């Protein structure tokens, strides 16, 4: 396998409903990534694009082909990936594989979504399509309900009083809000900083015990990255960020995961593969953009990735161990909670962030000092798709 580097990244603002179409959003993120890579559209050999619900959001399927043509990448192969919220990470991992194989030297990967444009009712309905349509949806499952049930199960499994757990979860949301408030591309840029615990706990109930401030928003946005072989990367940038490990895993409906819940077994398998490929351990990771669709999801993810012991992540957040300057910096972008969660683009947004962090190019208030090894973790559905990737400085 050849070494593969990220040579350029691009991203639109993540936000509420946007005026631009999905094709336009993706094309703008892609053009920024291509320009940052010192490339022209004709240099891109293939496109790999995450998009989950374009069909429902704006009646647009096959967004990848239209975006390729829009930006001037004419007649290249263009593939769409659908793994719910992990779609863009799947796209980037496959793009990595194609470059690593030597078949392509330069490819573009990313994703786009207009989930905010759909509104809460349709977005809630369509997101629930990533639970089992026959054996879970009839009971009225929604995404908040999945993580709400995991919250109660977490409290029971680790014998943490629910109120104490909810206060720990509030700390997760508060940290994410603080980081997102100083990220100009975040949905909650300039908002929600220093939110008191009481305000998190007291906001309206979505699915017990998760309140509005435990939940990520619906978001519109796009992100893209250019991947290149080591030889090609050398000619394009002085700061290539190498993808040194990847893992992906799948599994069935939530109830079939009962042997492990509230742990997400697919994540443990996916991340172990990524660690083994990269030859690093959880303790080597300086920062991680992980899948915090709900506050409890951060705790479950940080434990599954090996950063904290099972049942102890909440304490870690309380002590600042999951913050910049702590044991590991988690979601310095603001994460899904505060940067936003345009589901088909989310994984590419995570990669955008870790590449900028490793290059030392983010706002000083949220820059992880001397970051050298970074990780992304993206979860689709209720654990049905997991993708983990490790990134290291190439200079």
């Amino acid at each position, binding site marked *: 396998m050849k070494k593969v580097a990220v040579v350029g990244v691009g991203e639109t603002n993540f936000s509420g409903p946007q005026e631009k179409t999905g094709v336009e959003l993706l094309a703008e993120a892609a053009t920024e990534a291509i320009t940052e890579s010192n490339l022209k559209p004709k240099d891109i050999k293939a496109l790999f694009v995450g998009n989950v619900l374009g069909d429902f959001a704006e009646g647009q399927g096959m967004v990848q082909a239209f975006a390729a043509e829009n930006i001037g990448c004419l007649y290249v192969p263009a593939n769409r990936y659908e793994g719910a919220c992990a779609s863009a990470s799947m796209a980037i991992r496959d793009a990595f594989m194609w470059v690593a194989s030597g078949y392509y030297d330069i490819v573009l990967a990313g994703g786009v979504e207009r989930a905010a444009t759909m509104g809460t009712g349709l977005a809630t*309905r369509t997101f629930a399509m990533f639970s089992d349509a026959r054996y879970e949806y009839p009971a009225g499952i929604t995404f*908040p309900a999945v993580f709400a049930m995991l919250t109660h199960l977490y409290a029971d499994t680790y014998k943490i009083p629910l109120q104490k757990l909810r206060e720990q979860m509030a700390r997760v949301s508060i940290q994410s809000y603080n980081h997102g408030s100083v990220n100009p591309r975040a949905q909650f840029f300039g908002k929600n900083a220093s939110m008191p615990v009481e305000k998190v706990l007291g906001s*309206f109930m979505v699915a017990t015990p998760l309140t509005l401030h435990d939940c990520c928003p619906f978001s519109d946005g796009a992100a893209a990255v250019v991947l290149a072989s080591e030889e090609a990367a050398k000619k394009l940038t002085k700061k290539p960020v190498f993808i040194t490990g990847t893992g992906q895993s799948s599994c069935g409906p939530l109830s079939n995961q*009962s042997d492990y819940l509230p742990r997400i077994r697919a994540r443990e398998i996916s991340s172990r593969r990524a660690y083994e490929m990269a030859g690093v351990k959880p303790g080597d990771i300086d920062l991680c953009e992980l899948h915090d669709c709900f506050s409890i999801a951060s705790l479950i993810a940080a434990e599954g990735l090996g950063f904290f012991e099972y049942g102890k992540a909440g304490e870690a957040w309380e002590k600042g161990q999951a913050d910049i300057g702590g044991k590991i910096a988690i979601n310095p972008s603001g994460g899904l909670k505060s940067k936003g969660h345009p589901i088909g683009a989310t994984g590419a947004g995570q990669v955008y962030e870790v590449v900028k962090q490793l290059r030392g190019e983010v706002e000083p208030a949220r820059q992880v000092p001397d970051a050298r090894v970074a990780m992304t973790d993206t979860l689709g559905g209720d654990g049905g798709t997991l993708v983990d990737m490790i990134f290291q400085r190439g200079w």
Partner: protein
Amino acid sequence: MGHKLIFKDYNEALKNNRLLGLKCQSCGAITVPPKIACRQCAGQDMEITELRGNGKIRTFTTVFVAAEGRESEIPYTIVMVELDEGPWIMGNLETTDPKAASMELIGKRVKMENRVFPGDKYSAGGGARPLFDLVR
């Protein structure tokens, strides 16, 4: 090899309060809802078995924000129940006061009936789901 039991037949039985599962002839594990392969050993030699529908609540939530088309149902309580035969299954809790659902539900014994979701424009038909009642 095909399915020994498919959704259509599982669903028809569930509408009559009969919970069908599959018993693995290799490892003895019960798989429900139905699949081609055993959820424990991935073996495909399974026979249909009727489960009793008894179990205990392992977790729950009460939902206040509905999906499009299901606004009239909120608030409602979803539970994951560990069946006496081993598997967990998702369903609803029969309760007059979903807002009162609390951690005290965890571990409580339940007995299964069913309620039918009639389906919506996306779902290619409806489906029954377990409706659990607390055993008092």
